[in-house]
């Protein structure tokens, strides 16, 4: 058997930007694929537009194309590279759709290349619901009764047969996009209409409702010899009705007998065979009626999925790695199990622990979004935890989410808990439903009441009861004996929770616990329930007898990861942590990773020397430090690479006597605390925008009068741009304070001068205590006021002068010195007039580190890790990790564009949420375009992020008054490029007075005209517009702008909301009109 030797060059298709439903699990799977293929001596060609991925690091492929993942661009790559095979089953739905596109366009045939893993026919059999249904029937399974529809008329006819509620599922979309449950005609019209639009084949499936049934997922692998194994079973605690990605899930399945489980296993095997997934992994979802066990096959994904990443981490069976080996011809029995080293991969992992995954949401970022959980996935990240019991794993998972609302509370006073109201509220699944359940049960609700409301299996509800019972015991004033404390820890109670129950503080409990000698032990994830020895130190904590941490002699460095993905803290930080681990391993240290995000490369068991899958809380980290200190020398902990999560732990760790490597907690505080940072700036004669702190509305108005409008206003106690707004006058300021804050002397409001139309600059730099290395100076395309994470940016900066560049470098050096940075620092500047303002400094790896590293070829995170451990910049220069001399230099022109999840959210009335950028970050991911000119690079970034910009057609322009002057030049340019301009009244008049002809259209609020003239929204809905320019006025949801933007988003029409973006689009379209956008691998760029 063995490998197919005819495969010498493989094109791996990545999954593009992080979006809801398709996150960094595909970086994990793609990275594994690249590693496997290279180890086989195969030339790896990779396409992925996402610069924040590990897989797009130049060393992971022979030719890495950071280019749009569209059939057109991939064809160019195929033409150039002539791969023997294309591997598209590891890049999520994006890669699969691209593969189908390549097949349909005849590209695969034209270049005589083939898909490996799954062929187009198998993909279609798996994903086309009608065909899949037939397959399920053929193998003797059952599907939910359903009807395929292509029009609204068919949909209404269908519901006559199936009755309400009905489930609507569009074909060929990912993460359940566009699907939902309709309870009546209104909701049907709304969900099914959107579903038809989202489906690339305008096809939706109406289905009988099986809401409330038990939900299971099996991960299946097959090789070319037709050997099939089930890698993992996953049970959803939230029953049918909530998307698996939004459900709390547990592995293995816990409430099925063997007889029932084997039925699911048999069905899974028959399905993968019948669908004909030749090699690799797929997942199959089932619903089981809790009353009689009737099984319904819901769907299958003929590819590696989000669940595969979870299953890989949950079992230690690396699905993506093995899928890749199977794709090039190996069989399961020819592949060794990495963990045991002696047994083959042709087996089924068995677990002697429980894994719980909990989703993390971002509803607070989308205030008007419908918070109900449905069959459309809405979570932005997830945490996983492992324990030796379900309660232990669950409690760890909930604290891993880093949200205080997620942690179970046990108030002594029950008067505030309205059980009846909770029982009613929990009928509708929302982010904190399980917490509602626990609260209700704490206050006396019984299992049957809760089951009636939620249909959560009684077994899980009983476990919550046991947790509550233990909490009740802990609240008793009896002495905290070893046995007592141990039984609480076995249930997963944190020191914080125990402290709260006993009215003391966390530290007291920790001291008492340590005094009793009670520490967790660390068990190993080994795929085989200890049947064979494990050689990979992949650990989790539990309160039991025996620890499996092995002694070591090499000095260890502990790296803290960034926890669950969330908006503002995602894959970029994992990238930095992984880089640190790689480089420190190379430098001779033993690397120890702590993280709880199953989607990441950092939680792959072979990324670091040791992996602890643990929550990132002070307690959990301190215990790992303790265990590792017993195992051998520990140099310290790196907290500056994983974003705000580890940074927030630095002070506590230091106070507990742990060495923080790199920038000290004091320095971190200096940069983060506004007053202290102000002093640093003053000492270095640097300017910050004026600001003030107001304890009342009057004070706020006074401050605004002193510093001048517009002002940026926000409550002082939230971070990350939450609740920020830019206001232009007293009325708006007063209204914001009344609406969005709860202003008191304890909760003051920050009022900052807002630099209107300033250029915003982002800098990533390294500092070793004496020398500064300027990694990159990025210029934002959107002006200051748009959160840097949501703004497109370009490297090198395009409009700043040499002297401005010089003063930026000087200011960066001063701040790095003044703060006392050892490692990375990110600073945001604004240039307004001729003044350079310092907006903020973060003494840690930033979101842009991977982008800058890709654009300049300098591995900033690796250098930062080395600096943390005492290397100087000059050492690193002579070692070759940093350039011999000078700062980072961009190769070519690179544009980073943010990707926003507007199409994922609806308001409760079913209409879209407003697609407008602001000071609060809302993007989930990013893409990069790299080219010789700004226009080409920008065009590529737009194609990657939103789909193609139009080369011709109609552009709709609606400019706010403040944007009219800056919008004139690009409007003119569009006319010159041959576009037809249309505009609403004000803008059309403004353009006319400036000699530009724009066809006037009616506003939405004006309604259709007397002669049936369409409003802009109607025009958008009927496909008469190719590009929308709509700049909002302040933040007030002006109905017109909002209606235009949401209509554009729903119709997938590119929508630009800033004049800077408008100008950039001109350059992009020029590049498109000039003809071919060329492709070239990052390895070639870096040679330049």
């Amino acid at each position, binding site marked *: 058997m063995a490998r197919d030797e005819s495969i010498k060059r493989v094109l791996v298709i990545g999954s593009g930007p992080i979006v809801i439903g398709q996150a960094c699990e595909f970086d994990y799977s793609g990275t594994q694929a690249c590693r496997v293929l290279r180890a086989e001596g195969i030339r790896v060609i990779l396409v992925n537009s996402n610069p924040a991925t590990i897989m797009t690091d130049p060393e992971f492929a022979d030719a890495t194309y950071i280019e749009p993942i569209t059939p057109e661009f991939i064809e160019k790559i195929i033409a150039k590279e002539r791969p023997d095979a294309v591997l598209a089953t590891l890049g999520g739905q994006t890669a699969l759709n691209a593969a189908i596109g390549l097949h349909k366009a005849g590209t695969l045939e034209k270049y005589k290349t083939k898909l490996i893993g799954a062929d187009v026919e198998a993909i279609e059999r798996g994903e086309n619901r009608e065909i899949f249904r037939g397959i399920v029937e053929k193998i003797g399974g059952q599907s939910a009764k359903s009807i395929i529809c292509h029009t609204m008329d068919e949909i209404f006819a269908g519901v006559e047969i199936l009755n309400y509620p009905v489930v609507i599922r569009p074909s060929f979309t990912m993460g359940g996009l566009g699907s939902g449950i309709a309870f009546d005609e209104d909701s049907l019209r709304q969900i099914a209409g959107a579903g038809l639009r989202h489906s690339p084949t305008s096809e939706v499936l109406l289905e009988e409702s099986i809401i409330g049934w038990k939900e299971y997922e099996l991960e299946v692998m097959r090789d070319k010899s037709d050997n099939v194994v089930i890698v993992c079973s996953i049970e959803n605690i939230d029953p049918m009705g909530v998307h698996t990605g939004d459900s709390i899930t547990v592995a293995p399945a816990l409430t099925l007998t063997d007889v029932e489980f084997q039925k699911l*296993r048999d069905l899974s095997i028959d399905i993968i065979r019948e669908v004909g997934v030749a090699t690799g992994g797929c997942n199959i979802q089932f619903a089981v009626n809790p009353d009689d066990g009737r099984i319904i096959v819901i769907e299958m994904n003929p590819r590696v999925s989000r669940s595969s990443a979870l299953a890989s981490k949950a079992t230690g069976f690396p699905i993506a790695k093995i899928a890749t080996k199977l794709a090039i011809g190996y069989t399961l029995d020819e592949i060794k199990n990495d963990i045991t080293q002696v047994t083959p991969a042709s087996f089924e992992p068995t677990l002697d622990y429980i894994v719980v995954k909990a989703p993390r949401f971002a509803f607070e970022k989308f205030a008007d979004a419908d918070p109900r959980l449905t069959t459309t996935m809405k979570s932005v990240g997830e945490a996983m935890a492992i324990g030796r019991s379900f309660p232990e794993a669950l409690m760890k998972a909930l604290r891993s989410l880093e949200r205080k609302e997620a942690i179970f509370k046990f108030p002594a006073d029950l008067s505030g808990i309205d059980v009846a109201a909770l029982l009613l509220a929990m009928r509708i699944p929302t982010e904190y439903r399980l917490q509602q359940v626990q609260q209700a049960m704490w206050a006396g609700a019984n299992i049957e009441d809760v089951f009636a409301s939620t249909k959560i299996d009684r077994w899980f509800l009983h476990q919550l009861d046991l947790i509550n019972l233990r909490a009740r015991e802990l609240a008793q004033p009896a002495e905290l004996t070893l046995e007592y404390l141990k039984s609480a820890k076995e249930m997963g109670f944190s020191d914080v929770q125990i402290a709260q129950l006993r009215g003391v503080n966390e530290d007291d409990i920790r001291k008492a616990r340590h005094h009793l000698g009670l520490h967790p032990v660390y068990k190993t994830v080994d795929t085989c329930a200890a049947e064979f020895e494990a050689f990979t130190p992949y650990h989790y904590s539990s309160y039991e007898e025996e620890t499996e941490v092995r002694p070591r002699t090499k000095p260890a460095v502990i790296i803290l990861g960034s926890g669950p993905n969330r908006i503002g803290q995602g894959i970029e930080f994992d990238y930095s942590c992984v880089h640190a681990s790689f480089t420190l391993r190379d430098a001779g240290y033993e690397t120890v990773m702590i993280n709880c995000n199953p989607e990441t490369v950092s939680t792959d068991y072979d990324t670091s020397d040791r992996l602890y899958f643990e929550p990132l809380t002070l307690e959990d980290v301190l215990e790992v430090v303790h265990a590792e200190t017993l195992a051998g020398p520990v140099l310290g902990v790196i907290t500056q690479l994983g974003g705000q999560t580890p940074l927030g732990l630095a002070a506590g760790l230091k106070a507990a006597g742990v060495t923080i490597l790199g920038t000290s907690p004091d320095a971190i505080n200096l940069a983060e605390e506004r007053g202290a940072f102000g002093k640093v700036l003053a000492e270095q004669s640097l300017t910050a925008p004026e600001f003030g702190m107001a304890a009342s509305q009057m004070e706020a108005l006074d401050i605004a009068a002193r510093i001048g409008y517009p002002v940026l206003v926000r409550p002082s106690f939230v971070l990350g741009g939450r609740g920020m707004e830019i206001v232009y006058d007293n009325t708006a300021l007063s209204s914001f304070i009344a609406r969005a804050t709860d202003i008191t002397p304890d909760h003051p409001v920050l009022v900052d001068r807002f630099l209107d139309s300033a250029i915003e600059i982002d800098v990533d730099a390294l500092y070793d205590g004496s020398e500064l290395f300027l990694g990159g100076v990025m210029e934002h395309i959107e002006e200051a006021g748009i959160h840097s994470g949501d703004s497109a940016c370009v490297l090198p900066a395009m409009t700043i002068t040499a002297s401005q560049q010089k003063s930026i470098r000087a200011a960066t050096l001063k701040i790095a010195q003044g703060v006392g940075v050892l490692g990375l620092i990110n600073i945001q500047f604004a240039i307004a007039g001729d003044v350079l303002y310092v907006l903020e400094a973060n003494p840690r790896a930033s979101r842009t580190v991977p982008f800058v590293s890709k654009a300049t070829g300098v591995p900033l995170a690796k250098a930062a890790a080395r600096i943390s451990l005492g290397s100087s910049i000059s050492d690193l220069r002579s070692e070759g990790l940093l350039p011999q001399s000078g700062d980072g230099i961009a190769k070519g022109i690179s544009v980073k564009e943010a990707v926003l999840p507007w199409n994922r959210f609806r308001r409760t009335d079913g209409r879209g949420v407003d697609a407008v950028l602001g000071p609060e970050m809302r993007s989930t991911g990013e893409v990069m375009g790299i080219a010789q000119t700004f226009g080409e690079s920008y065009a590529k970034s737009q194609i990657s992020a939103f789909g193609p910009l139009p080369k011709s057609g109609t552009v709709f322009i609606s400019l706010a008054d403040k944007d009219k002057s800056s919008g004139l030049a690009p409007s003119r340019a569009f006319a010159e490029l041959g576009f037809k301009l249309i505009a609403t009244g004000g803008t059309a008049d403004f353009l006319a007075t400036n000699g530009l002809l724009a066809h006037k259209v009616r506003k939405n609020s004006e309604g259709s005209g007397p002669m049936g003239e369409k409003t802009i929204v109607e025009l958008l809905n009927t496909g008469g517009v190719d590009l929308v320019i709509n700049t909002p006025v302040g933040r007030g949801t002006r109905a017109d702008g909002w209606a235009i933007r949401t209509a554009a988003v729903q119709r997938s029409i590119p929508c630009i909301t800033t004049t800077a973006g408008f100008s950039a689009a001109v350059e992009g379209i020029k590049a498109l009109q000039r003809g071919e956008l060329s492709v070239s691998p990052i390895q070639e760029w870096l040679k330049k």
Partner: protein
Amino acid sequence: MAKAFLVLDDGRIFEGKSWAATGRTFGEAVFQTGMTGYQETLTDPSYHRQVVVMTAPHIGNTGVNTLDNESRKIWVAGFVVRNPSTITSNWRSEKDLEAELIEQSIVGIQGIDTRALTRHLRDRGAMRVGIFLDVDITREEMVIEVRKTQAMSGAYLSEDVSTDQTYVVPAIGKKRFTVAAIDLGIKGATPRALAARGIEVHVLPFNANFKEIQVIRPDGVFLSNGPGDPSTMNDVVELVREVLAANIPIFGICFGHQILGRALGFETYKLQFGHRGINQPVLDKKTGKVEITAHNHGFAIKAPPDAIFNTVYGAGEVTHVGLNDGVVEGLQLLERGAFSVQYHPEAAAGPHDAAYLFDRFISLMEKYPRAQAVI
């Protein structure tokens, strides 16, 4: 809950809490890695005299029901779990697991570090064990008590588990064949699998003689699974040789496989800790395919895995090997209708990948019809 101790032959003691029936129990400590199927394990006669450690941490979640029993009672000598469920949640459940164990006087222990115990058994081998309540004997005395008990090597257990009298499981649908099944501790799933294929199964006691088989006029003889050391099974080995001489097709499973192996002249040996789980990969040497199978064996056959061997009954070969450790998992004769596997095609608990072996038995009965047999 009272304190309880799990005491191993080599002196290691785990402390836990009493669970299920209270009292003392002894047996051979073995671990079982299945994540489902505790009820089938408990009622599998092959676990007779064994104290079973479940590696899956939550046991009892789905309670017990009548249909999933593999025999008339629970056979394990003791049951070791980490977290027994205090609630039952399944539409087929009839009774709580602990209540069932108490009713059948099965002593259990809970709350011990089952992973540490499993690692210990893996490294040191299956060994004698006792479960003790927190009574006033010393730890040393407990170890001495454990060492007084009989080891599994040399244990002859068939008479404990076998049926006293022959009974018949009728064929489902049209009857195609008659099979005499020698009950050495048979699981209910095997006659079910045979009956489902149109076989009338006559289940005979372990000490049935060849005449009693002949009376049935069987198309084939089935040798069941069961507990004990195969080296003690001389009588049944002789019986099997008579069946072989008479050219009646034979199918053996697990203990029955070891006995067929012995009848062909091979020796058996005790594995370090055995195979007990439902995730074991077995390679079918002829097809090159891997099946995921249910295992429960502490002994195995020594046979040449890579070459055709000669026996009194003609040439034979090893058909299946375990991929984890290369153990012989299947045998067949090339010139007569006899084959056997060390694992459990009847599953229960476990995957159904090997169910085709029952069809293979049918093909053998077709290939070697009764007319040719020397009966």
